[in-house]
């Protein structure tokens, strides 16, 4: 795996999802997602070590409603970022998400603003955020925190975009060319920094983290 063995200490497992809009079928979907994924929500956050370097780590659980972002996912990410500021640690987020969660309506939409705002505070504190985009990352997650990394990394062939290909087809009657929205397409259009295979991810992250550790900067900038 990516983090050092037994180094992951999960946070905020006690945040439970409600059904604020009384949305048709949402409670059933949540139960189903819980059974399918074994987790309580679509993102896990916590403290981890990568080659001995402490980081705040978050990653989506794709089996929980496609890692979509509702109130709890947004809140967990924000709390993780705020704790990173308190602990003066870098943040690494692995995204796999269909976007904002429809079933929580406007509350989901504003999680985009809320997570982005928290990253603003992180940046102000000169702390690193590495965003890793895995297959697939779309919608409200692409249009918020996942695109705001100081460094954007994607996995090979991962599909990354704002609007999903099916929706583009349906609404615009536009068939996307082969290879559109892949990590390679995104890199070619200047939208991501690096394409890294999962096997290499740990060592690439470790190098990047090391070069951003406190104390290694040129003194005058501190």
């Amino acid at each position, binding site marked *: 795996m990516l983090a050092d063995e037994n180094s992951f200490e999960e946070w905020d497992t006690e945040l439970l999802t409600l059904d604020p*809009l009384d949305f048709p079928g949402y409670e059933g979907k949540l139960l189903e997602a819980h059974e399918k994924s074994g987790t309580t929500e679509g993102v896990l956050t916590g403290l981890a070590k990568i080659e001995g370097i402490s980081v705040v780590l978050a990653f989506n659980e794709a089996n929980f409603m496609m890692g979509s972002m509702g109130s709890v996912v947004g809140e967990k990410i924000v709390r993780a970022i705020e704790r990173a500021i308190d602990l003066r640690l870098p943040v690494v987020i692995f995204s796999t998400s269909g976007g*904002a969660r429809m079933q929580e309506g406007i509350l989901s939409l504003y999680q985009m603003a809320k997570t*982005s705002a928290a990253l603003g505070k992180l940046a102000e504190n000169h702390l690193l955020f590495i965003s890793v985009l895995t297959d697939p990352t779309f919608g409200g997650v692409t249009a918020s925190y996942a695109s705001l990394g100081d460094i954007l990394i994607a996995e090979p062939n991962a599909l990354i975009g704002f609007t999903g290909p099916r929706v583009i087809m349906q609404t615009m009657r536009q068939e996307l060319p082969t290879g*559109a929205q892949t990590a390679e397409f995104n890199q070619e259009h200047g939208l991501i920094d690096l394409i890294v295979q999962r096997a290499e991810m740990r060592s690439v992250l470790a190098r990047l983290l090391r070069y951003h550790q406190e104390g290694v900067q040129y003194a005058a900038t501190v």
Partner: protein
Amino acid sequence: MLQLFDFEKPIAELEQKIAELQKFSAEKDIDLSQEVSILEKKVTFLKKEIYGSLEPWQKVQIARHSERPNFYDYVPLLFEDFIELKGDRLFADDRSIAGGIALFHGTPVTVIAQVKGKGTKENIKRNFGMPHPEGYRKALRLMDQAEKFGRPILTFIDTPGAACDLAAEERGQGEAIARCLLAMSGYHVPVISTVIGEGGSGGALALGVGNAVLMLENSFYSVIAPESCASILWKDTTKAKEAAEALKFTAQDLLRLGVADEIIREPLGGAHKNLRQTAEEVSQAISKYLVRLRSETSEMLRENRYQKLRAIGVYQEISEKEISEKSIDILEKDLTK
């Protein structure tokens, strides 16, 4: 001819009847004033009844009305001056977003708005109010200037959503929107966002990170278009009406959910029935919030905006102890079965 919805037909029929009676009475010189006055009372009552209890889907129809005032309609009524500034300095000028410097009650402000066209020709020019990344980057450029020169930012939201085509993907639609969210959350100047029509998803939110979010009475602001929601939920776009109810996206819902701060009254039947009156209400609401925000220091403006965002979301928090007690409960129940 004004676009007329099914639910408005009883009103239109009565109004037509009144017009006919008046014409008849004038032609034949017969006094029908009593009959007319009865019908007029009836029409007033009917309007209040119909427009006073609009369902979410009916509000969607009004918010999307072809005669719904757009940003440019409001400009001469809201501002003493408006200098439109164009382009993102990177790629193009997106005409689905307008921005510039305006004079509002004597104060220079930066104004950013999504703009839908009127009629097909203008709508094509404005991409039906669906901005591409260059639109959001223009907005960002102008908002950054507002921060630099200490001008309040007024945004006006009216979009079905961000452009969703290949070009938008190639130029980084997600990143363009995300940058707006990040930047807006950090400004030291007052930001007031007003939803004047449709608030379509992330494309709308990109201008929605305000200290105050105001909504016109018949506007809506949603994570997803009701048609798309219906298509996902029931594989049936004709069930948009049901989706509109499920999504809880009216101004009244958003006020309750802590996203909107104020509902701006519209004339009976919608903003298009009386632009001047609507603009006056919008002007008063914005002015009220600008005055209120003036008492905050630049640091407070920023921190209060952050705390407002921070508080959005509904969830339950239970302690580890409660979790273990719960699982013991479940275990015990299982055992007794």
